[in-house]
C-alpha cells in the first residue's frame, strides 16, 4: 500500500502476511516424508481440491488479464479525444462501453471464483484438521500410560492447540496462495511481454533489488528476533518465579531485589526488541520504496516510449498495475516457503504422536472373569520403568480372597507402581500377576479393569454435574443408583446441602468442593462400579478431621469382604492389614505381616517407630 499498485486477486491478505518473513522459522526434521504423509490427508478431498485449483486459476487469470483491458480502454479514450480535437467527431463511447462491460465481467468473475475457492477450501481445511485431531485423540486412548507419564501434559496440549492452529491456517490460506502466486507471476510476465518487451525489462530491473533487500533484512531481523526471544524467555521465567514465590518474596522482604532484576531484564528486552521490530518492520517500507522506484521507471521509460510512438498511452497504466502485481507474488512466495516449513514442523510433531508405540494388544483368545473371588498372585514379578534400573525383582505375593494388603513407605516411594502393575497400565518384564489363577494378560484390559475399583488421593473429576461424575462409575446408572452409592459413601448429606444438590455443576479441578468432599465423590463412584478388588489411597493431610472420619468409614464399608490394596497412612489400617508391602525409592524392600516386620528390625520397624511411636519423639 505504499506504492500506487493494485493487489492481485489472491485471497487472505495474510493475517500472518509479511511478518512471517522476518521471524526465525521452525524446520521439520524430515521435510519430504512429512509432506508426503501430510498430503495423504488431503487425497480424499482431491476432487474438491482440483475444483479449488481451477477456481484459483480462473480467478487469477481474470485478474491478470484485466489491466490489459483497462489499458485498451484508456488508449481508446485518448484516441477518441485526439480525434475529437482534430475532427470534432465525438468519442465513440459505444465501443468503450462494450469494453467496460467486458472489464466489469472480468472483475466480477475474478472475485466470484476467488470467493468460491476460499469457500470450498474452508470446508476442506477444517474437515482435514477435524479428521487429524480425531485420529490423534483416538491414538491417545491406545497409548500406554508410560507415554502420559513421560510427556509433560503441556507439551501434548501445545501440539493440539498451536500445531493444529498452524496447520489449519496454512490449509486455509497458504495452499491457494501458492497456486495464485505462481500463476500471477507467470501470467503477469506473459501479459507484460505481449504488451512490450522493453517495458517488461524495466519492471525486471527492480526484481534483484527487492530479492536482495528482502533477504538482507530477513537474515538480520532473524538474529535480533532470536535474541529477543531469549530475553523474553528469561523475563517471563522471572515473572513466573516471582509471582509463584510471592509469599516468600514478601516474607523475606525481597521486593526491591526482585524488581531490580526485572528492570534490568526489561531494559535489555527493550534494547533488543526495538531493533528486532525496526528491522523486521522496514521490510514493508523498503518494498514500498522499491515499488515506487519501479513505478517511476515505468512512468518515465513508458512516457519516453509513448513519445517515440513505440507503445500506446494505456500501456503505462497497464504496466503500473502489472509492476505491482509482479512484485507481490515474489514476496508472498518467499513467506509461503517459510510458512510451509513451519507447518511441516507442526505436522511432524503431530505425526510423532501417531507413531508412538501402542499398548500391547489384548490377547486374541481372551478368557473372561466375572465376579472373581479375588485371589491375587504376584509370581516372580520383574519390573522397571527404565531398562537399566530394575525396580522390582522376583517379587512374590499371594493374596487370598478378602484379604487387605497395606502398601507403606515414605512419600515418593513409588507406591503407585503396584497400582500400575495390577491395572496393567504398565507391562511386566518378567513373571506374571494372576487373579483367581488367570494371568491378567490373558484377560482383555476392559475385563481386567472392570474388576478393580480405584480411589486415588489425586481425585479426578471432570466438568459436569455431581450426578454425571458419580455415574461415571457405571454405564447406564440410574439416578437412584447414584444416590445409593453416594449414601454408602457418606457423601449424600453434603451433596444435598449444595444449592443444586446432585445437579450442581463442578468446575474445572472442582475448586468449589473441599479435597475431602471430592474424595467422597470418587469413593461413591467406585462404589457404584461395584468392583471385586479395591485399590485405595488413604488421605494424608489435606482433609479435615470430620470428613476424614467419614472417608475412613466409607472405605471400610467399601472394603467389606473384598480383596483390597491400600496405600496406607494410618496406623490402624496398617495393623489391620493381612500383609504389608514396604516400599522405598520405588522398590518393594520388605514384605510380611506387622509382627514379622517389627521382629526383623528393618526399614519398616524404624519407619513405624519414628512415625507412630510418637510419644518418644522430641518436638524441639
Amino acid at each position, binding site marked *: 500500500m505504499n506504492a500506487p*499498485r493494485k493487489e492481485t486477486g489472491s485471497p487472505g491478505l495474510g493475517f500472518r502476511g509479511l511478518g512471517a518473513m522476518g521471524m526465525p522459522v521452525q524446520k521439520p526434521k524430515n521435510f519430504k516424508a512429512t509432506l508426503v504423509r501430510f498430503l495423504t490427508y488431503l487425497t480424499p478431498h482431491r476432487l474438491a481440491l482440483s475444483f479449488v485449483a481451477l477456481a484459483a486459476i480462473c*480467478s487469477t487469470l481474470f485478474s491478470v488479464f484485466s489491466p490489459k483491458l483497462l489499458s485498451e480502454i*484508456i488508449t481508446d*479514450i*485518448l484516441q477518441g479525444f485526439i480525434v475529437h480535437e482534430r475532427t470534432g467527431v465525438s468519442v465513440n463511447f459505444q465501443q468503450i*462501453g462494450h469494453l*467496460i462491460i467486458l472489464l466489469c465481467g472480468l472483475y466480477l468473475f475474478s472475485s*466470484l471464483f476467488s470467493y468460491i475457492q*476460499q*469457500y470450498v477450501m474452508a*470446508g476442506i481445511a477444517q474437515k482435514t*484438521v*477435524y479428521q487429524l485431531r*480425531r485420529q490423534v*485423540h483416538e491414538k*491417545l486412548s491406545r497409548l500406554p*500410560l508410560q507415554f502420559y507419564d513421560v510427556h509433560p*501434559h503441556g507439551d*501434548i496440549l501445545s501440539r*493440539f492447540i498451536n500445531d493444529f492452529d498452524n496447520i489449519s491456517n496454512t490449509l486455509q490460506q497458504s495452499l491457494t496462495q501458492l497456486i495464485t502466486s505462481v500463476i500471477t507471476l507467470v501470467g503477469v510476465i506473459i501479459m507484460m511481454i505481449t504488451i512490450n518487451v522493453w517495458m517488461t525489462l524495466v519492471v525486471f530491473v527492480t526484481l534483484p533489488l527487492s530479492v536482495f533487500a528482502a533477504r538482507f533484512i530477513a537474515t538480520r531481523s532473524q538474529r535480533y528476533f532470536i535474541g529477543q526471544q531469549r530475553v523474553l524467555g528469561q523475563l*517471563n521465567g522471572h*515473572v513466573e518465579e*516471582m509471582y*509463584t514465590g*510471592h509469599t*516468600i518474596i514478601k*516474607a*523475606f522482604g525481597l*521486593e526491591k531485589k526482585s524488581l531490580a532484576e*526485572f528492570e534490568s531484564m526489561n531494559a535489555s528486552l*527493550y534494547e533488543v526488541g526495538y531493533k528486532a*521490530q525496526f528491522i523486521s518492520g522496514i521490510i514493508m*517500507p523498503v518494498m514500498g*520504496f522499491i515499488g*515506487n*522506484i519501479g513505478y*517511476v521507471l515505468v*512512468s*518515465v521509460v513508458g*512516457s519516453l516510449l509513448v*513519445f517515440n510512438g513505440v507503445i500506446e*498511452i494505456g500501456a503505462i497504466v497497464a504496466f503500473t498495475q502489472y509492476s505491482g502485481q509482479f512484485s507481490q507474488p515474489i514476496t508472498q512466495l518467499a513467506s509461503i516457503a517459510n510458512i510451509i516449513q513451519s507447518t511441516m514442523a507442526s505436522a511432524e510433531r503431530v505425526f510423532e504422536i501417531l507413531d508412538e508405540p501402542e499398548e500391547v494388544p489384548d490377547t486374541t483368545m481372551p478368557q473372561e472373569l466375572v465376579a472373581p473371588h479375588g485371589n491375587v498372585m504376584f509370581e516372580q514379578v520383574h519390573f522397571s520403568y527404565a531398562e537399566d534400573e530394575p525396580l522390582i525383582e522376583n517379587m512374590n505375593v499371594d493374596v487370598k480372597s478378602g484379604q487387605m494388603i497395606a502398601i507403606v513407605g515414605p*512419600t515418593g516411594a513409588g507406591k503407585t507402581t503396584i*497400582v500400575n502393575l495390577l491395572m496393567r497400565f504398565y507391562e511386566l518384564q518378567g513373571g506374571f500377576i494372576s487373579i483367581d489363577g488367570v494371568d491378567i494378560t490373558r484377560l482383555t484390559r476392559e475385563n481386567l479393569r472392570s474388576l478393580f475399583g480405584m480411589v486415588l488421593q489425586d481425585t*479426578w473429576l*471432570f466438568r459436569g454435574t455431581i450426578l454425571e461424575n458419580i455415574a461415571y462409575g457405571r454405564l447406564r446408572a440410574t439416578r437412584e443408583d447414584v444416590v445409593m452409592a453416594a449414601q454408602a459413601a457418606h457423601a449424600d448429606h453434603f451433596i444435598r446441602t449444595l444449592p443444586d444438590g446432585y445437579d450442581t455443576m463442578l468446575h474445572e479441578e472442582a475448586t468449589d468442593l473441599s*479435597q475431602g468432599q471430592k474424595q467422597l465423590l470418587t469413593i461413591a463412584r467406585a462404589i457404584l462400579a461395584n468392583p471385586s478388588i479395591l485399590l485405595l489411597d488413604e488421605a494424608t*493431610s489435606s*482433609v479435615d478431621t470430620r470428613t476424614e472420619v467419614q472417608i475412613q468409614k466409607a472405605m471400610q464399608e467399601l472394603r467389606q469382604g473384598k480383596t483390597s490394596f491400600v496405600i496406607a497412612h494410618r*496406623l*490402624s489400617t496398617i*495393623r489391620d492389614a493381612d500383609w504389608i508391602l514396604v516400599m522405598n525409592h520405588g522398590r518393594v524392600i520388605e514384605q510380611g505381616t506387622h509382627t514379622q516386620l517389627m521382629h526383623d528390625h528393618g526399614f519398616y520397624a524404624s519407619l513405624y517407630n*519414628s*512415625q*507412630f*511411636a510418637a*510419644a518418644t519423639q*522430641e*518436638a*524441639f
Partner: protein
Amino acid sequence: MRLLRYLSPYRWKIFVIIVLVFLQSLSSLYLPHLMSQIVDNGVLGHDMATILQLGGFMLVISIVGGVCSIAASYFASKVSMGFGRDLRSKVFSRVEHYTLHEISTIGTASLITRTTNDITQVQQLANMMLRMMVMAPLTAIGGIIMAVTTDAHLSLVIVGILPVLAIAIFSILGRATKLFKSMQVKIDTLNRVLREGLTGVRVIRSFNRGMFENHRFDMANLDLTSTSIQVNKIMALMFPLMMLIINFSTVAIVWFGGLRVGVGQMQIGSLMAFIQYVMQILFSVMMVSMMSFMIPRASASAARINEVLETEPEITDPINPKDEQGDVGLVEFRDVSFYYPGAKQAALQHVSFMAQAGAVTAIIGGTGSGKSTLLHMITRFYDATQGQILIDGIDVRELSQERLRAKMGYVPQQAVLFSGSIKENIRYGKADATDDEIRHAADVAQATEFISKMPDTFDAEITQGGTNVSGGQKQRLSIARALVRRPRIYLFDDSFSALDFKTDAALRAALKPEVLQSTVLIVAQRVSTVIEADQIIVLDEGKVEGIGTHDTLLHSCNAYQEIVASQLAKGESA
C-alpha cells in the same frame, strides 16, 4: 483503551512519527500527480526534457518518501517497545506490592499471563497503530484532497464508493467477530476436554470409559469444526468483495472520467492519476479494516492489564511507621477475628494468645481450621478484621512491612525455590550471609548431605520451580533459607511434611539449640510434631478450642482428643 495514557511520555516521538508518515503518504500521492504531468505535458506536449526532469523529480520524491517511512518505522519501534517496557514495569511492581488477597483474587497464572502475553499483545497493537493505522486516515485525507483538486466532479465517485465499502466491511466483520468469539469458547472447551483426559487417564482407563471420552472429544471437535467452517466461509467473502468494490470503482472512474476527457474537461494524465488516488484511499481503508481484527483481542488484553493496575493493594505501610522498642520477638494476638474478603464465615474468631521468646508454640487443627491464616496474619499478609496483633507490644499495622518481616523467618507449606545456585537460594534469607553462615544453616536443615552429593555442591544450579530436587530437599533448603536469617520469630507452616521420618527427627534435634532464644510458631497436622511444644493451640473452624500442653489438652480438650484418636490407635496416645 485507557492504557493509551501510558503513551504520553512519547508524545513528541509520536508527533514526529505522524509527521513522517504524513510526508511519506504525501510522497506516495504526489507521484501519480507528477506522472500525470509527464503524460499531459511531456508525452502529449512532445517535450522530452520535461519527461526526464519530472522523472528525476519523481525519483527524489520516492527517496524522500522511503527515508520518511524508514525513519517512522524506527521511531514506531522505539515508542511501541518503550510503551511495552513501561507497562510491564508498572504491572510488575504493582503486583509485587499486592497482598495475598489480590493475588488470589486475580490468580497467579492469570497474573503471569497479564504481565507477559497480554502486554506483548498490546505492544503489538501499539506498533501496528503507529505504523499502519496512523497512515490510513492520513492517506485517505491526502488522497481526497488530491482527488478533489485534480477534478472535483469526478471526486463524487469516491463519495459514492466509501459508504458501500464501509457497509460491506462492517457487515462482514460484525458477523465474523461474533463467530470468532464463539469459536474461542469452543477452542477452550476442546482444550478442557483434552486436559481432563490427560490428567484423568488412570481413572478413565480403570473405568473403561475410553469410548465415552472419545465421544466427548468428538462432540467438542465437531462443534469447533462447524464453527470454524462458518467463520472461514464468511471471511472468504471479505477479500473478493473488497476487490470487487475497488475494481468497480476503477471502472466507474474510467467511464465517468472518460466522458469528461471526451469533452475536454479533463486531461488523460489526470485521469490516470485519479485512478491511483482512489486506489490508495480504498486500500488504506481496507488495510485498517483488516487490522481492526487485532483490536478486540488486544483490548481484551488491555482490560486485563488495566484491572491489575487499578487494583490497589489492601495493605500499605503507615505514613509514620513506629520504631520498634524491644526486639525480643514476643507475639501477641488480642481478640483477633478475620474474615476473608467476601466470606460470610470467619476464618479466625476471637483468637487471643501469647507466644513467648524462647518457647515453642504449636498450632494444630484440620484443614480450614485457620492455622495458616493465623501465621499469615503475623507476617501481615492479611490484616485483622477485628482485634490486634502485637509484636513486642507494637501493633503490626504501625510498623513498616519491611521492618516487620525482617524479624521473621518464614517457612511455607509448599517450599518455593528460585532458579540460581543453592548458595544464592539460601542467601535469599540474608543477602550478606557469609559462606560459613550458609554452610551452618544447611547443616542444621540436614541439607548438607544431599548438597555435597550434587556435582557443584553449594554452587549447583536449581532449575526453575526447583524441579531438579525432590520435595524433601526443597523443604530443607527452604528451612535453611529461614535459618540463615537468624530471626527473632520463626514461622513454620507445616514445613516438615515432605521429610522422611529419620530426617525429620534429626532436623528437629539440630534445630533445638538454634532457636533457643527465638519465638517459634509451628503449624502442624501430625500430633507427633506438637507433643513436646511448650504450648499447643488447638484450632477448629477458626476458633480456639484449647491452649495448653499435650498432657493438659489430652484431659481437657475434646477437639484435641479427637485429633489424637484419629491419628494414633488406642493405647498409643498416652
